[in-house]
């Protein structure tokens, strides 16, 4: 993750769909265009849906890192409002 300067983190491992995306969306709405959010999520449904929903909202998915414990970190750059 060192290749990106992360502006904010949000942990969505404690919630389930659709609140996973809602929490991520709330976090990215707080940022400015071009800033970068890291989203910590569980494998399975969130990994399938949250990156796709982020793209649909006009944000740029930079990277999805898999962690050793089975969780993922999604790196997203905020798009134009």
């Amino acid at each position, binding site marked *: 993750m060192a290749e990106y300067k992360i502006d904010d983190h949000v942990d969505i491992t404690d919630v389930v769909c659709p609140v996973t995306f*809602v929490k991520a969306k709330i976090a990215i709405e707080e940022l400015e265009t071009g800033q970068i959010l890291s989203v910590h999520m569980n494998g399975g449904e969130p990994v399938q849906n949250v990156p796709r929903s982020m793209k649909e909202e006009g944000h740029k998915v930079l990277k999805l890192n898999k962690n050793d414990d089975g969780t993922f970190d999604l790196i997203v750059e905020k798009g134009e409002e």
Partner: protein
Amino acid sequence: MAFSNEQIERYSRHIILKEVGVKGQKKLLNSSVLIIGAGGLGAPAAMYLAAAGVGTIGIADADEVDLSNLQRQIIHSTNDVGKAKVLSAKETMEAINPDVKVNTYRTFVASDNIMDLIKDYDFIIDGTDNFPAKFLINDACVMAKKPFSHAGIIRFQGQLMTYVPGEGPCYRCVFKDPPPKDAVPTCKQAGVIGAMGGVIGSLQAMEAVKYLLGAGDLLVGYLLTYDALKMEFRKIKLPKKVKSCAVCGEHPTVTELIDYEQAECDGVL
């Protein structure tokens, strides 16, 4: 203002929507709507607006809940019969969503109170059941430059239109004056199918929410009619501006609010 976890969950289906999002939901929470009439139209409108998290909702009605109301006025329950409608409505709205502040006005609107009632609200919903009130609400909203949703229901039919100051015709542009006293059957005689209030009142709530969010196109410059028996919706284009309109035209003759004489009515809406 940050959302609590409970709010995130409560409004999740809104926040997911691109047209709403966090900003839109906050807008709704900071908005206010006045619903005039806690009857067939006002009931679903009030419930949806409360559920949506419109932060301040005013409700005006002088009546008490009657057993004959319950076939369509779904905000009231059997236990509420005899209770002031505004109180019964407030209890239901607060039970749906404690985020909402409900202001009750136990009165019918008239020329001497309406300007004061509407002045602090962002949007007005006309859920009344009689022509004098409909013309009064229209004229007051034109004069106070307030957007509002007009609607009316009878039998298996309903209609609505939205007025936004400066953007389209008002109710009086289209309907000019109240009809002669016996031209339209009284509500009591005519009857109304219960779900009609649900269809049209929900559309009024939708118009209010869209206005507050600034999303999509409003029903300005159109009259939408619904015939349930034919299962037909018609969207009728209205003139953009009626120069001869007595209240919003070039030479208005209605410069003060009018209390038209009210026909005997059981309050079907």
